[in-house]
């Protein structure tokens, strides 16, 4: 198996995610692009998990790298990432909805982050 294939797929997906985040104005689409990036990372995790171990034969595993006899950490991380992504999407969409309720829009360009009064420090 040529591991470069999933890696390149992941790289391209990540690039698409970046492109989407930067290109899209709709918050939901941005979230989708973020999902793409997360999945790209997941793919790398899983691919690495499946393949790197076979490349490491003969290498004395370090204690920190090998907490249990058979490391499947990549897949577990991927699971964790998926869970995190779910949480992120839940909260993110709640924010989007709330924002929509307040402003009737989900266009990120209109989000103003600097409308707060701060004490002006004059010498």
């Amino acid at each position: 198996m040529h591991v470069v294939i999933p890696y390149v797929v992941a790289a391209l997906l990540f690039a698409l995610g970046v492109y989407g985040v930067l290109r899209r104005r709709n918050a939901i689409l941005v979230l989708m692009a973020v999902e793409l990036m997360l999945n790209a990372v997941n793919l790398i995790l899983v691919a690495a998990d499946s393949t790197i171990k076979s490349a490491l034969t003969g290498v004395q595993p370090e204690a920190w790298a090998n907490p249990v006899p058979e490391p499947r950490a990549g897949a577990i991380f991927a699971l964790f990432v998926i869970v995190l992504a779910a949480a992120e999407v839940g909260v993110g969409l709640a924010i989007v909805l709330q924002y929509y309720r307040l402003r009737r829009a989900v266009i990120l360009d209109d989000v103003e982050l600097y409308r707060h009064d701060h004490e002006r420090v004059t010498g």
Partner: protein
Amino acid sequence: MTAAVLIAGIPLLLGIAGLLLPPGDDEGRRRPAAALGIAGAAASLLVTLGLLLFARKPIELSTHWISLGDVDLTLGISVGHAALYVALAVCVVALFVQIYSVAYLHDDPRYAPYAAQISLFTGAMLLVVTSGDLIGVLVGWEVMGACSYLLIGHDRRLPEAPAAAVKAFLVTRVGDVGFLLGVAILIVDAGTSRIADVLTEAPHPAALILILAGVAGKSAQFPLHTWLPDAMAGPTPISALIHAATMVAAGVYVVFRLYPLYEQSPAALAVLGVMAAITILLGALSAMAQDDLKRVLAWSTVSQIGYMTGALAVGSPAAALFHLLTHAAFKALLFLAAGAVIHAVGTNYLSRMGGLREHMPITFWSFVAGLGALAGLPPLAGFWSKENVLTAATHATEGGGAVPVWVAWLVWLAGLFAVGLTAWYATRLLLWAFFGVSRAHGPDGPDWEVGFDDARYTQPALPHDPPAAMRWPILLLAIPSALLGLAAFAPGFRTALELDEPHLGVAIVLPLVLLALGATTAWWLWREVPGVDPATALGPARPLLAAGFRFDDLQDRFIVRPTRALARAVTTVDEKVVDATVEGTGTTTSRVGEALAYAHRMSLPAAAAAVLAGALLLGAVAVLFGAAA
């Protein structure tokens, strides 16, 4: 003999106590204040007299005060008979001034602090006289300055009083810079401040000359004499106190006290001599043209103190001290009498007096005695002491002393010439104030508003002799003014001062001739043009002399104004450079912060693009450098 502590201690303590009395005008509040003041002076006087009578040898008391590093300070009393005589003079004058003030300030609401301050003043002077320790001298020296400030500025109705008070304190304080440094050098050299120990060390000439700066300040010597004439803004009894026995005498006394050191330094003596010669003439000439009765006397003090420092310069501390004592007597008398005159006529100006002789005979005769003594009319006190000074100068011109011969000549010539001048202005004062017709009504009517609160009368009354409380001090002071000179014939007194036996040689002829010449000239001028001030004969020089050779202007131009300009410059630098740097740092920081905050407030997509671009950049850099490594 520990009673010597009391000489200075009693007035100081009573003075502090007096300051705590509640202020007020009513009789119940004045009485304790007056009692404290008089009691202080009287107690000191009694102690001094007792010591004078019963102490056989000089009293030396010393106790360790404090150690500052390697410097040991002692609290000490060191009183010889000379010091006791000076203390006696101080106490007598202070006592009379206190009594006199009760009447003079009979309606002043701030009499209580005034009396207390006189007590403090007296105590400080007595501390200078009796202290056996340089720090003690310094304490008394400066406390006196502060008290003089308070007392000169006492009168609230005179707009110039506060300025005069500030001037007095400041000018003497400038001198004290030198005094402090000089004392510092002496203390450091000796490792102790005990005068007896300091005197055993070889002195540093710089220290002695620096001390002379302080002496010039306190004793109103050229070039720091400018405060004294202005100090006339104070109440007249204060003038008497300052001029007669305290303050101005302190400088002379300190040089006398440290004389063993000065003897070893011709340079310091030369400085002192030149200073004295200039001061004698300066004072006498300026006194000639004054219209203010008290200013005449003030300038005469400047001149007479010059005689004392001159005597010190030519190597005769005894003559200086003798003149100090006689001067204390007759100058106190003159000022108190002048106070009586002012009290009676309500003005200081000679041009508003005249013809007072018949109305106030006692004052008149006091003036005669005082002015005679001032001018050196035999056999009054001043004659003997001044004679002593001139004799000492004559001796010094023969060489052999510590002082350079030319300095001795200078002092002698100045002293001699000033005898004539003194006679001239003394005669002028007497004639112009007491003889002739009254000029009380000036061109604009009576000038009753000039003067003091207590001398303000709605109805111009006939001038009259002062009330008893003022009269008796004057009368009593007239006695030593007339007779103190004869004390030079008393062996005990002579031994105490280490004075030479008076001998009336041919040398006295010259001063006497000058005396007669001066007096006659004044009389002749007064007689020739009735109703006109004899000083007009001075012609164009008169304004210059009246302004005391415009030293005030010079001082203003070369000291006060540059200091002010410097202050302005430093303030500007402080605000525009030092503080602006600080503020600028703050402003710059917040500006940079604002710029960064602005950058962080860019719109969300742009921020996201920036972050991702940054991450890309960092990744690229990491890979490139990682590859390179």
